[in-house]
């Protein structure tokens, strides 16, 4: 049975502050009762991941990892969400590994495939930037060096 998962674009849309607050209060209330339902955890974690603040994303991924550890039945979905969370944070390496595992289990999952493409694009983009930066630095370096040498030879 294919798992129902959101497209990565959904993760970019964040909840309003109030909604996140509600989810957080719900989560903490259940914490005090020492029994947190999986749904509450997920709601809060997903809300955190969706937010643009990096600390929130980190916390969200941490809670998702808790769910992953604690609920074997939910693991497959969590793989996707963990991949998504890491992707948003920029940890492409981890994102790739989680997503790869999910695709192993469910090759036909559309969202997982699209996420894989996104991750690859992100990695490539950073590679280009890196290359451009390296090239630019190399160019500047040679210019500076040339200038120094010229100054030295001129004297």
């Amino acid at each position, binding site marked *: *049975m294919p*798992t*129902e*998962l959101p497209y990565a674009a959904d993760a970019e849309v964040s*909840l309003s502050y*109030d*909604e996140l*607050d*509600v*989810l957080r*209060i*719900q989560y903490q209330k259940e914490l005090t009762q020492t029994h947190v*339902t*999986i*749904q*509450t955890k*997920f*709601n809060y974690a*997903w*809300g955190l991941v969706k937010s643009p603040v990096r*600390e929130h994303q*980190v916390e969200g*991924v*941490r809670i998702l*990892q808790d769910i*992953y*550890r604690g*609920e*074997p*039945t*939910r*693991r*497959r*979905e*969590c*793989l996707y*969400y*963990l991949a998504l969370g*890491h992707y948003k944070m*920029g*940890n492409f*390496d*981890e994102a790739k*590994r*989680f997503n790869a595992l999910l695709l192993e*289990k469910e090759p036909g999952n559309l969202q997982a495939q699209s996420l894989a493409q996104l991750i690859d694009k992100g*990695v490539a*983009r*950073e*590679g*280009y*930037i*890196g*290359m451009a*930066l*390296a090239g630019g*630095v*190399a160019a*500047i*370096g040679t210019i500076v060096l040339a200038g120094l040498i010229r100054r030295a030879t001129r004297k």
Partner: protein
Amino acid sequence: MSQRQQQDNGRDTSSTLSKLEVVQKAFMAPFAHKKTDSTRILSDLAPVIMTPRMITSAASRSRSNVSSSRISASRMDFATLGRAPLRLGVGSRRITSGDLQIVEATEELLEAEVPEPDGVASNVSLLRGFKATIPSAEKGRSRRKQMRNIETPRLGLKKLGMSARGLLVEEDDRDARSTTSEDDLVLVPDVNARPKSKKRGRESLSTQKTLGKEELTRQTKEIIRDKENIHVRRSLINSEIAEITHKIEALDSIRSKLEQGLLKLQEDELELDDELIGVNERLEFEQSSSRLQTAAYPALHLPPSSRRRKGPAFLPSEHEELPPGTLDSHTTPITALDFSEPYGTLVSASQEDAQPRVWDLLSGSEIGRLRGHRGAVKCIQVEDHVCLTGGEDGNIRLWDLRRVEEDDDGWGVGEMVNLSDVAEEDEAEELIDRPNGIRAHESVAEKDGPCARVLEGHSKAVTALYFEDECLVTGASDKTLRQWDLTTGQCVMTMDILWAISHPPTATPGSAHSFSGSSPASGAFGIPMHPYADGTHDTYEDFVGGVQFWGYGLVSGSGDGAVRMWDMRTGQAHRTLLGHTGPVTCLQFDEIHIASGSLDKTLKIWDLRTGSIFETINYDHVVTSLQFDTRKIVTATGENGVKIYNRTTLQHSTLLTNGHTKPVERLRYMDRYLITGARDTTVKIWSL
């Protein structure tokens, strides 16, 4: 470029970046910012390069991450470089412990198994649940309600009820709408709208307002979706409930195991207490017996200590082999049995057999027989080498079991030979007016080797007896109890049960007897018994089911269903315990309780001091024999198995393995050594 050299050390990045590091240090100098302690040194040098991955791989080189990172190093390094402008643009990037934790955890998580989702997980995905439970799920509903202008506070039924009862109601109506309410689902507050809508009051959905087709279809879709949401939430809650139930069951099972452990400890403690008492008694006995060494041995020296309080006679470590299981030589159902000690001597009697058999329990073989009685033997008691039997002929015989072995050889020859031995033996304590000559002419049946004495006096069958030291009490079907002195062989007192019945000690005029099965005054006493487990049934004719005494207090169980407590000094029954609705068949008491079993299929335990019923145990068939101690009650209840009731754990169990094939009639145990006799004519020995 000495800095470059320094930076090259301790780094596993490729050499193409060395120039880069210098440049970036220049870049990053103005962007000084705080870091966590662990990463400060490394990240100060080149913060962008030292992404979390690099840091952790530098920190723990043994990880396979390092090797895999080398493989993809070339590509990823550019990627990590690419992060530089992003970071510079966005601002300071802090590597927190959270990041580290996440990254470290990925390793172990990826190792974990990913099973197929089932149950709730497959029906309701997390995302679906999210959509169903987040606050905005209610938006559609609230919007529709606002459209209808119906004031819909959270019903607050509880508050209504409380105010109706006049209790103080907290004014938190406003809070009900805030995020701190108890309700899961909270309307994202629209505080401004409320004051206005409150004043508007209730306006029902009037038909004057036209909402338009699109609006209505939208509403129907929303409603359907909300219903689905409710369905989703319900299944979520159900799954949670199921999980919690499992957890509770697991905890309950753990608790019951612990409680069982507690009970075992209690049993052990009681056992140790018993052992201690026994050992102390033994100590006293041995100390006192060492002083009595000069006593004449051949005298019929009845052991002074009561067997009821003997120490651990059966120490399992002394006898490695299990006792012989079955003794089979009777031909009719067993009527009585008793033994001296575990692995000692057993005497058993059966119906229509006037000769009880004597067995050696070490070898499991028959030593001899006790000849002398003219009818069946109904009750036996054995103490060391002394045996007392009561028979249907109304006589009680005293036997010396040591002599059974001597006589065994000489059975066929003629009993004359033995009489001379007997003459010498008896001289010490026998009555002087019995000359040898008379004895020689007397019929052998009256006096033989083992039989030391005959006590006559009862007119009907003797059905119960109990002796201790030199005192014997017997009960017979002539409805009397007699007390005898064993040294002289004379009856000291006769206690008439009939008289006690018609003159009850406590004058309560309306005290009818528990049952009107038979009139005790009539001559014959016979009560048809309830059938045994195998369908057979007898007519119970024994009027006195059991007797026991201690000091001068005597307890008897009789055919009218009453347990009577007598004072042997006066011969009067000072208390009658009524409760059984059938004749009492067996009886035993200790310092605290009296246990009596009867034909009414119950076993009652009475408090000795107050005479009130402490406990009643119901069985499926008649109770014919019992014995109890502080920890257990062993009963023969007309079934093939022996019933054991554990008084500590209040649990019943049955001994059936290799058991009898017909109902058990009699039993006797000492410590862990149990002997039972049944209607299948066998005597079986058990280890408890």
